[in-house]
């Protein structure tokens, strides 16, 4: 079992990254990361966790999604935008990313978590399933609903169920 400091050093960037990508806010991501490490610290004496990276990722994703869901009706603090002085070249892309995060808070919690771990963290369906203790099929279902809902909210183009192309990839 690794020492605490070693575990923190190994996973701090990963935990912060999960939280930051979901919340889009450095401050929120720091709080989420601290929550995740607190949970790890409290779980440690129980000896039940074998994969600390997976545990921390899962907790960080859950907590970050809670933050985004709470934020649903609040506009983002403009001071949290990245300090990139580019004029407008990335304006549209950043606006869309912000809209994705905004819409993200309106997804079912598990669907949002699955989407984040799959697309933001680039994990495979089986990895996500193992991390969340659900079946790969449940990951596909959650992904489908998350994707459809995001596209509906963002682009006002309701998707038909026959677009469930990834279901056959299990």
């Amino acid at each position, binding site marked *: 079992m690794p020492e*605490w400091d070693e575990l923190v050093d190994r996973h701090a960037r990963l935990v912060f990254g999960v939280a*930051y990508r979901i919340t*889009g806010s450095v401050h929120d991501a720091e709080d989420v990361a601290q929550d995740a490490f607190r949970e790890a610290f409290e779980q440690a004496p129980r000896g039940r966790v074998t994969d600390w990276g997976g545990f921390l990722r899962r907790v960080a994703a859950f907590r970050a999604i809670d933050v985004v869901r709470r934020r649903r009706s609040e506009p983002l603090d403009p*001071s949290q935008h990245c300090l990139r002085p580019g004029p407008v070249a990335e304006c549209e892309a950043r606006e869309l990313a912000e809209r994705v995060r905004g819409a993200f808070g*309106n997804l079912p919690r598990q669907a949002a978590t699955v989407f984040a771990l799959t697309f933001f963290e680039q994990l495979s369906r089986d990895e996500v399933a193992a991390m969340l203790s659900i079946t790969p099929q449940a990951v596909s279902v959650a992904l489908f609903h998350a994707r459809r809902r995001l596209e509906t909210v963002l682009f006002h183009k309701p998707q038909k169920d026959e677009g469930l192309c990834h279901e056959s*990839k299990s």
Partner: protein
Amino acid sequence: MKASRESEFHLSSPLAEAVHLIANAPLDAAAVERVRQRARRFSESAGAPSARLGEVSAIKPVRRVKAWRAGLAAAALLLAVVGIVFMTGEAAAVAQVAKALRQVRSATYVVTQRVGDQADEITKISLLDGVSRAERPDGSVFIFDPKRKRLLRLNPAAKTGTLSEGATLKDGFDVANFFSDLNKHVTKVEPLVDDREFDGKRAKGFIVDVTGVKYSVWIDPDSSLPVHFESERKQKVRGADGRETEVVVKETWSGFRFNEQVDATLFDADPPTGYAIEVRQVGNREKQIEEQRQRAEEEFRKASSPGK
């Protein structure tokens, strides 16, 4: 970076673009270090600096409460009142520039951006009472009105445009906001840039370090307004073949003119007549979104329940 999952799961193109941007957003190294330091304190507080995970006791962490939210105004005030008096000249300069810019009613300047070895892209910026206007090299025009939360993009050649309502984009091309952000996030200021002359007037130079990204800034020592500044950062870009490469992005903000007469009609974020305008809702569509969320919850419950 691992192979992208977008293609595997067939995200629509704009969503895939946004996901790619989020997935590859650079991380704030200073924030990661703060996370590391705070997490390490859990075991230190338990009196076991090198405790093994199985031996430490559960303790309550020192919660970094949302004090940054509640105390933001107080901190800003403190910075303005105390900081300017006691900070070093260079550190105070950032606050002074931000303060001076808050008094500015109008401004015009040019932002030049070079990505890798590509040609310079020059954007002309003008500001009036908080509304900003950007004229891009391709002829397109952006007008952003933060009070009305409107971002109007116009393509004069095609007579088309997009109006984003509820837009909260604040950074990007407003120099006042840029320095306000610099002031909030600055980690170090160094007087390392030589003073220079711009348009025959001497300007004081310094380097502002914001979590590892350095900005070389020259200001008018009399007015504290910016005269010229430059930044350089590395950024990943995806080529036409889908491959990512890291390029150096250089930006220069120059040609500042403040409080000169500008044409107020150029800052109207209402769609002009004769244009085909697509209207997008960016902000709170709470009721509609909540209904969609509830439907999604219900659909997910049905789809996930055994024996469906």
